[in-house]
Structures are given as structure tokens and as C-alpha cells.
């Protein structure tokens, strides 16, 4: 059926099974590289997008449930030429190894820090407690988050 998605300020009407997880519409139909399949279970964060200011796991969110909502992906924040401040903070801290987790880390961190700019270390830990980086770039990523929050 026809599903209308508003992604990064643009409206797309796609022919999709309404039960399709949003991730597949973003990565396959809209060919976005930011949101990624990590687990398909909402456990790792790789697929995270921001919907109405909230970090949402697109691998366990149906397209039907976000129809008409403003969806922001990593691409919607900034570009290599004009990065968003949180993206720049991760470059400044050289906070990556393989980089596969960056989507989940940056999108989860942005949604959290925009609401909680004065978050304590414990609150940041809590906010990032179901986001994974299996290369374990934690030191730099947490530093990048603090840099952005400042």
C-alpha cells in the first residue's frame, strides 16, 4: 500500500507492506547509508533515527507507525562539507574505529543531549547503556558527546 514518509524534510510516497520496519524503507527504498541494520532487535542502536525529537530504533518501528511524522536520519543532520556540531565533535575527537556504530551513537546522543545539555556522567552512561560500539571507542565517543554538550 502507499505509505508517505517525511524524511529529512522531504516527503516520499512508497509502495510498502505497512508492517515493513522503517529501516528497510530508509536503507533500501530511499538508499540512505546512515541508519544501519545491526541486530534487528532494537538492542544495539545502529538503526536509530530521530522522530519528534526522540531516538527511535527503526529496525523495530513499522513504517505505518511513523507515517506523516518528521523523521531525521544521520544524513539529515549535516554533510561532510557542512557537518552538524555533534558530527563535528566526533571528527574533532577522532571518535571512530570501523564507524559502523556511529549512526546509533550520534543519533542517540543528539536526541538525549538536546534535551539534557547539562547531563551528568551517570546520566550520559544511562542514556548510552543500550548502544553498542564493538570496537570500543567509548573514551573518544563520550568525549565527543561532552564536547557537543558544551
Amino acid at each position, binding site marked *: 500500500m502507499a505509505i508517505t514518509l517525511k524524511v529529512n524534510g522531504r516527503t516520499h510516497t512508497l509502495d510498502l*507492506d505497512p508492517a515493513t*520496519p522503517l529501516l*528497510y524503507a530508509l*536503507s*533500501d527504498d530511499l*538508499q*540512505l*547509508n*546512515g*541508519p*544501519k*541494520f*545491526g*541486530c*534487528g*532487535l532494537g*538492542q*544495539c*542502536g*545502529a538503526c536509530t533515527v530521530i522522530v519528534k525529537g526522540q531516538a527511535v530504533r527503526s529496525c523495530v518501528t513499522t513504517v505505518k507507525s511513523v507515517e506523516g511524522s518528521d523523521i531525521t*536520519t*544521520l*544524513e539529515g*543532520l*549535516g*554533510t*561532510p562539507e557542512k*557537518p552538524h556540531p555533534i*558530527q563535528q565533535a*566526533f*571528527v574533532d575527537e*577522532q571518535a*571512530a*574505529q*570501523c*564507524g*559502523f*556504530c*556511529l*549512526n546509533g*551513537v*550520534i543519533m542517540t546522543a543528539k536526541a538525549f543531549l538536546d534535551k539534557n545539555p547539562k547531563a551528568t556522567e551517570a546520566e550520559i*552512561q*544511562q*542514556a*548510552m*547503556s*543500550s*548502544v*553498542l*560500539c*564493538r*570496537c*570500543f*571507542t*567509548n*573514551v*573518544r*565517543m*563520550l568525549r565527543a558527546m561532552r564536547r557537543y554538550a558544551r
Partner: protein
Amino acid sequence: MKVNRRDFLKASGGLIVSFSLRAQGPLQGSPPLNQLDSWIAIAADGSITAYSGKEELGQGISTAQQQLVAEELSVPFNRVKLVYCDTALTPDQAHTSGSQSHPANFNSDNLGQAGATAREALFRMASQKLGVPVDRLTASNGVISSGSQQVTYGQLVEGRKFSLALDPKAKRKSPSQWTVLGKPIPRPDLPDLVTGRFEFVHNVRLPGMLHGRVVRPPSVGATVAKIDESSVAGMPGLVKVVVKKNFAGVVAEKPWQAIQAAGKLKVTWNPGPPLPDQATFHDSLRKLPARDTFMVDSGDIDAKLSGAATVLKATYLHPYQMHGSMGSSCAVADVQGDRATIYSATQAVWYQKSTSAMILGLKPENIHVIFRRGSGCYGVNGADTVTYDAAILSQAVGKPVRVQLTRKDEMAFENYGPAYVIDQRGALDAQGNIVAWDHESWSPGLGNRPGTNRPGNIITGSLLGFPPADFAPRSPAPPPGAFNNNSNGVPSYFARGTGAVQSGRVLTHAVESRFFTGPLRSPARLQNTFAHESFMDELAARVKADPVEYRLRHLRDARLKEVLSAAAKTANWETRPSPKPGNRRTGIATGRGAASVLYEGDNGYTALVAEIEVNQETGKIVVKRMVAASDVGPISNPDGLRNQVEGGALQGLSRCLGEEVTWDNEKITSVDWRTYHSLPLGFEVPKIDAVLINRTEGEVMGAGETSITLVAAAIGNAIFDATGARIRQIPFTAERIKAALAARA
């Protein structure tokens, strides 16, 4: 169309180039290692392209390689483009693995030597052109100058090849001359990574590409009895059901359609033989038929043990652990007729080519494998197996097919880092010196990397009917061969390695595994070093010696001693025996522990001090600080090295505290992030001090697997320091720690 490197250069603007190959003529193979043109091309406009057979997995080696070429050619970093791991374009350097990229390309041959050979060739050309002796020329920014006259690299080469062999005598720049190498140059891939522009293998999209999904066996060793294709008949988007021996999969137009069809496909399986009981698994390894090997045997170990003042014994246990790459593995293959183009995150595009040829029944020369980065690679994760999946499914439909594994299929069938049982016996004289050390280990293995011709070493090849590498029991072990401590099976303290202890024996028993196994970051080295560096602490404690001082007393290698001393100094190590005097047996106790090793016996000096808190009520550990010192020769990029040291330390911590593959009587049960316990991004991350010793003389060593090798031993030693309880089984779960605390005398 014949793909050649000149056309490629013209067609490509940058590092990442997607082009589908529908070639009619023969593919160009990998160029020879001994020819300069295989490594470096200078275009008429002066742009420089370097070709490497060592790939970027996230470890930062592409940045360092770009620095290396820029340095040797006296151009700025950004003037060099690096192309790596493409079977039609780049030299065949086998695997990117084993912390070997840095030594392979930065020492006296390969990429670094190509850079120096090219620079000297350019100087000779300039000398001829300008009529000025070479020794009166200087190069900067791609321009060679005599003072009054100048000529650019582009003008000298005029788009031609060098047609020269690599010159082993070409003079390399020394670290004191470096202006690009040795600097913390930021990684050029980050702006694309943080904005979603970067193309992982997961993002390769070919025209007309379909989506595949595999249906793996429900239990270990299960075989296909029957497949009912009518169970998916008429499903939306379904293109084909593919069955080959025990391999089953579906191809559909869209990913979600493939997922649903794979879920509905009715497959009847014959169960495999029951799995061994995990509770008694480690002990069961001792009873299996084994291939026995002496790594060293001084021949006098029994006499020394029986004549010693004191003999200490301990047994250390390590579980199977998994790579658990964050993104499940993915590949894209386009197999049409007798040709194939494959996009893979494999660590060895050349071996993927030769083994894909076997599973597809095609000629290797008709297969083009192009590396694209996957999700974190810490060894043989699912990258190779999913490449076979994509290739088989693509061949069945004659169209490009993308396959990404489910989380469960990734975790239930990857090649795990193997379990270990390690017995240690140490003999001490009356003065407390170690006079003999006996090490005996059991470790299960099955399969491995596919290598050149063993697709059955990984799950998909096995399902397709290819056998894994042979296992040949052998007992007793023959006398030791030439000394090689690549696995770190030999403790650092042996005189045959880096130490002073004259009498030693290391006997290993390789046994068969029911699960596939393969290299996982610091393979065997981590398990062995955990046992050695824990046991060294036990020996020091027995004679009430300071653990660092006791290590230094039994080491001979000056660099290993220096790296250990550097870590201890930065950590303000307090010289005293463990356990820490005055600690109470309740509440929170603090302690510190140290460990050190020369990775692989010759590939990276490393030492680690951990400072921890143990909650003696809950068994919970908090690591407050880790000081990781390393000496890996001349440092190519200090920030890249630091990143590896930090990441290794924390990955080691996760593996030490929580990671363990689990199973029931028929299947793997650690199949997601609830059942396989990785530390998340948000935990109380210790302060990490990376102490980098920049040894500007001598050879470059590997740096990717140093700190991780030491973490478990340093933490275990710190737990002992804090509490007096010794924990000898990884992972150090709260339950195990509580049990060890309860068992204190």
C-alpha cells in the same frame, strides 16, 4: 572491457569507486609485488595513487599508509590517494590480519620501499632532465628543484609507468626527517562516516540488485531432510528458493520480502549429534583425541619440578568468545554466466576469489573481488561466509544479490575464538626464584579462515559440502621444532624467549571442536597470556615479591622491561607484594594489577596496569584506570596508535568481564545482545593512559592486538591484590568473583 589500472585511475575520483564489471575479456590479475608500478602510479597531472594489499578495517592503517607514501615521495598527505584490496588492481598481500599490515608495509619492502624507489627514480629523471647531479636536488610538494630550475613529478613521469623493480637499496627516510609520517594526522574517512555518506559493504547497491536471505540449520550439525517450496509459493516479491546440499536460502525483490519468505520456508532438518555439556566442557577437552605439540622442552622439567623447594600449580579456563561484529555481516555478489563480481568485507580478497571460485564452480581468473569495509572486524567474523551466501544466491538467479545475515545467524555460526584449558606448574628455589615452568594447554578447533582452498572452514562452505581443514591426532608430540612464539604459548620468562628461566616446557593439545573456530583478536595469544601473566602473579605472591619487580627479575629483554617499567611509573605503582595490606574483607576493596608481554614473540612490546574496585558483597568490578604502555618501534601515527590501544583495552575488558558463548544440548544460545554480554557504550569507562614509547630506531611492529592481550591478566591480578581471591576463569562474572571471595582461606 578489460579493466586496467590506468582506466581505473581515469574513471575514479577518489578512494571509493563502485563499478560493476560486465567484462568480456580477461580480468587483469593482481600486479606483482616486486614491481614499482604495482604500488605507485603518478598521473600526468602529478596526482599520486598508491595501491596496497592491506585494507582499512577501522584500525587506521589506510591513514598511516597514505602518510607513508606521502612521506617517501615528499608530498603533502592529501596528494596521495590510496586504493586497497581489489583483486584486479592491487598487489596480493594475502590477509589483512595478525597485526601484520604495519610491519609488512612500513619496514624494508612492499609499500614503503616502493615509495623510496619511486622517489629515487624521480630524482634520477630530474637529474637527467635538468642536467644537475642528484645530490644537488631537493623535493617538496611534488616538485624537484635544483635551486634555479624546477620540474614536477607529473612532468617527469608524463603519465608513463616507471617499469622498475622495487629497489631494496632505495634509501628510506629516517624518523628524524619525517614531516608527514609520525604525525597525528586525522583519519580522512571520518567526515563521511559521521554524516552517513560513507559506503560500507552494507550500502553497495547495484542496478537490478535483489535481496537474499539464508535459512541456517536450527541446531549445530543439522542436515536438510526435506524442503517444501510450496510453503512460500506466491509470496510477494519472491524470486527463487535455492537449495544446495545443506545450504538453503531465498531471493526476493526487497529485503523485507526476503525476510518474510525465509521465515515461512518449511525446512525439515535431521538434527546433529548432541553437544557436549557446557558445565563440564573444559574438563572434557582433556579426554579428547589430540594433536600434541611441544613448543619448547628443555628436557629437564620433571627433575627440576621434583627437586624444587616449592611447586605451585594452577589451571586457567577461557571460554569460546565471538567477534560479535556490531552490524551483521553483509556482501553483494553479481554472478552472471562464468563471471562474478563480488563486494566483500573479507580480510583476504585473493582467498575469497580462489574459494568463491570453488563454491561457484568458476575459474578464479573470472572472479573479481572488491573489498568494501564491513562492521568491525576483529578476525574471521561472518564476512567471508556471507560472501559465499551472496555468491551462491546470485548464481542461482543470474542477478546481483545482497545478503545480510540476521543477528542470530551471525552469532550462532561464526568462527569463535576458541576455548582453552591451561595447566601451569612453577618450580621455585629457596630464594624464591623461578627455576622451571611447565605449561600444558588444551584447545578445541574446527575450520579456520578459508585460506586459498578451504571454503569448508566456515559455515556456508561446510553447508555446501566442502570439508573443513583436516584434523590429525598425534600423540606423543615430536621434539620441538624451530623456536617460534607466535601464539605466545611460551611465557615471557623463558630463556628461549624474552626471559631468564632456563628450564621450561610448553605442550599443547589441539582437539576437535563442535563449533567453527578461527582467529579472534589476539588469537591464542590472549588466552595464553591470561594464564601466564596470572600465574606469574601467583608465583610472586607465593614468595611475597612485588609483582612488577618479580617480573623484571625474570626478564632479560630490555625493551620488555622498559615498557613494563614505563607503565608502572605512569601508574605510580607502589612497590609491595599482593594482596594489598590492610584491605578489609567486606565492602569495596581497591587493588592494582600488572601484566606485560612481547606480542607474538616479536611483534609489539606492551604492558598494562589496571586499578580497580571490587564490591565484595555483589562481586561487581569497576575498573577505575588502565595504563597501557606500548613500544611498537617508530610510531607512524600517534593518534591512530592511541585509538588502537584504548579500543583494545576496553574490548579486552568486555571480553574479560562478560563475553562467553553459551549452548544447550543442540544449539548455540548466545545469539543476541541479551544473551551475549558485551559492555555497552555507556558504562563507567576507566580513565585510560596510553604511554607511547616512540622507538625511532629499528623495525616497525604491529599495534592492533597489544593492549587487549593483557587486560584479563591485569584485572585478575588486581582482584587478587584487592581481595586476596584469585579468579582463574574468564569471564569474571559477579557469580565467579563471589565464589572466589567465598573460597578465600
